[in-house]
């Protein structure tokens, strides 16, 4: 156990001190933080500047969080110039037409049409009481935030899983190819070396996730997005970390096993292909689940390892999932992880000292 800890510690120290790690972490944290400000930046303009030429100002009700400012222009020519200069978003001329620079902003168009109709009806003494809106599902107001969170999480989990999985694979080949493994394995058992490497790089992955998630949540607090976050965020975050670990151990163990079949860094890519495909598949399914968390496909695949490793946490973020379902599918995934560990450790133990030509997995498994 002591050796395993030493191996893990070396992995963590080596990674955390490397410039690539620090820079990569900062960049991802900044990106995720930027996402927290994105609704502000890309959610349409916060204010409209509207103009009139020879007509009344329309009773436009500004959408939530936006403001409307009115200007008056002496004639149509002045209005056109203002539009081209970008001084106004739209100008109402003679109470009958609307000018805009390019195509009229869709939302603004609807607002103007509604206001125009309301004004005309009003003039005839017709009062139209606005429709009251009410969402039936209690937590519906979190839908937008949850969808964003789930999508972000899909990327985050995928990139962290791929990154750490490749780290494990390259580390295994580094040790095998340079024969350090001959010295290492004369002082410890293969499972200790493998376990230490997986544990160490898993911790590095966790550090990554925690920093990025904290960065995102912090930025959301600053940007005010946090008010849209559903209750039980802690549960979601913890769930994500646990699911990451399950998925990571699964993929990393198999990656180590596959990597132990080759002796040169150049061969890592091709030997990892099947696993990469599986992870990509998982990613696509999870992406789909982020958009349709209650669809049948998402519901079924959140029980099927290794898809569940990403689908379940993404669904947890996207919608409310009963605890028993989460626990049940985690148990199934844990079984798959145990299977991967048994298989991976066997392949690794038999293959890692056999340097030279690339080994075939069947040949390794059929060996006595």
């Amino acid at each position, binding site marked *: 156990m002591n*050796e395993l800890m*030493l*191996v893990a510690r*070396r992995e963590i120290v*080596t990674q955390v001190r490397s410039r690539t790690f620090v820079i990569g972490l900062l960049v991802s944290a900044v990106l995720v933080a930027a996402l927290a400000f994105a609704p502000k930046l890309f959610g349409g303009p916060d204010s409209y500047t509207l103009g009139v030429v020879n007509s009344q100002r329309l009773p436009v009700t500004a959408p939530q969080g936006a403001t409307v400012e009115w200007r008056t222009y002496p004639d149509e020519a002045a209005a056109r110039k203002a539009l081209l200069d970008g001084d106004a978003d739209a100008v109402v001329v003679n109470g009958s037409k609307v000018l805009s620079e390019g195509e009229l902003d869709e939302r603004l168009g609807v607002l103007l049409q509604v206001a125009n109709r309301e004004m005309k009806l009003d003039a005839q003494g017709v009062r139209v009481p606005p429709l009251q809106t009410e969402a039936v599902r209690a937590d519906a107001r979190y839908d937008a935030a949850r969808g964003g969170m789930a999508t972000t999480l899909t990327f985050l989990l995928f990139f962290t899983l791929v990154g750490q999985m490749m780290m494990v694979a390259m580390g295994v080949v*580094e*040790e095998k190819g*340079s*024969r*350090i*493994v*001959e*010295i*290492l*394995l*004369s*002082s*410890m*058992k293969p499972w200790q070396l493998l376990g230490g490497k997986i544990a160490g790089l898993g911790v590095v992955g966790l550090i990554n996730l925690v920093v990025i998630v904290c960065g995102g949540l912090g930025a959301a607090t600053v940007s005010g997005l946090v008010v849209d976050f559903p209750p039980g965020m802690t549960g979601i975050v913890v769930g994500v970390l646990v699911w990451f670990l399950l998925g990571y151990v699964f993929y990393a163990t198999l990656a180590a096993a596959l990597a132990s079949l080759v002796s040169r860094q150049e061969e890592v890519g091709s030997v990892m292909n099947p696993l990469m495909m599986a992870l990509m598949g998982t990613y696509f399914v999870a992406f789909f689940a982020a958009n349709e968390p209650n669809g049948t496909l998402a519901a079924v695949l959140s029980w099927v390892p290794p898809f569940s490793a990403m689908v379940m946490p993404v669904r947890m973020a996207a919608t409310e999932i009963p605890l028993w379902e989460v626990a049940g599918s985690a148990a199934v995934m844990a079984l798959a992880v145990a299977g991967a560990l048994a298989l991976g450790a066997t392949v690794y133990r038999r293959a890692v*000292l056999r340097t030279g030509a690339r080994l075939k997995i069947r040949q390794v498994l059929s060996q006595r």
Partner: protein
Amino acid sequence: MLELSDLRKRFAGGPDAPDGKVALDGISFAVQPGEMFGFVGANGAGKTTTMRIVMGVLEADSGSVAWKGRPLEHADRRRFGYMPEERGLYQKMSVAEQVEYFGRLHGLGPSAARKATADLLERLGLTERRGDAVQALSLGNQQRVQLAVALVHDPELLVLDEPFSGLDPIAVDALVAVLQERCRGGVPVIFSSHQLELVERLCDSVGIVSSGRMVAAGTVAGLRSAEGGTLRVVVRDPAPGWADGLPGTVTVAGDRHELRAVDADDQEILRRALKAGRVEYFGVEQPTLTDIFKEAVA
């Protein structure tokens, strides 16, 4: 004491050698505490294979390795020091960290590992490079780091595969000093080498392998006496045909005739030589390890 008995190993053959390749064909020898054992043999003779089996990197098909009278176990190997034939280090890790790490892996505590590392780097002339990444070092210096890795935990047995290759004379001396010191402390040392003069100078005993078999083993002196010396006589300007009927071979350089003979009646040769001319040299020359090696492998 380390004892190898009847180790056999056959490698699976490729398409060109369907029967496989016999690497070890019954290797047996023992190394006593405090003994320096030189392992020599032609390329492909089986030295590396033997050492890898001792270190558990490879499994023998049959035969056994015993340590202190009991079958060698994994836990024992943790206290061995090993330098593999193909050197392996973490290229991006610094020298000191690397040596310290291996010290820890072999059971040293943090401060003991730090101290042992500092001492060893000092002795191997690496103190200035302690903070450098291994990949920034020259090959010979990487080799010294590799040695430090094998030595850091004060091993109970040293198994070194060609430890001297690639070292400059200063480094060779430094390594020799370290090895002799460990040996005096009772540690058995096995090393393979193609530098036979060095083996002859350092080793208490040698083993010569050829095609997976131990063809000669014992102390250097013992091997020599088994081999017997070569009688060498130099006669100046002798009468023609002076050596007719004598054993051995005569080479002529100017007026100097040199006769070399093995297992001959030296007194008879001396009498004939004195009669033939002026004897400039008469003596029995001990075979060098190179002579013994060539003889044994032939």
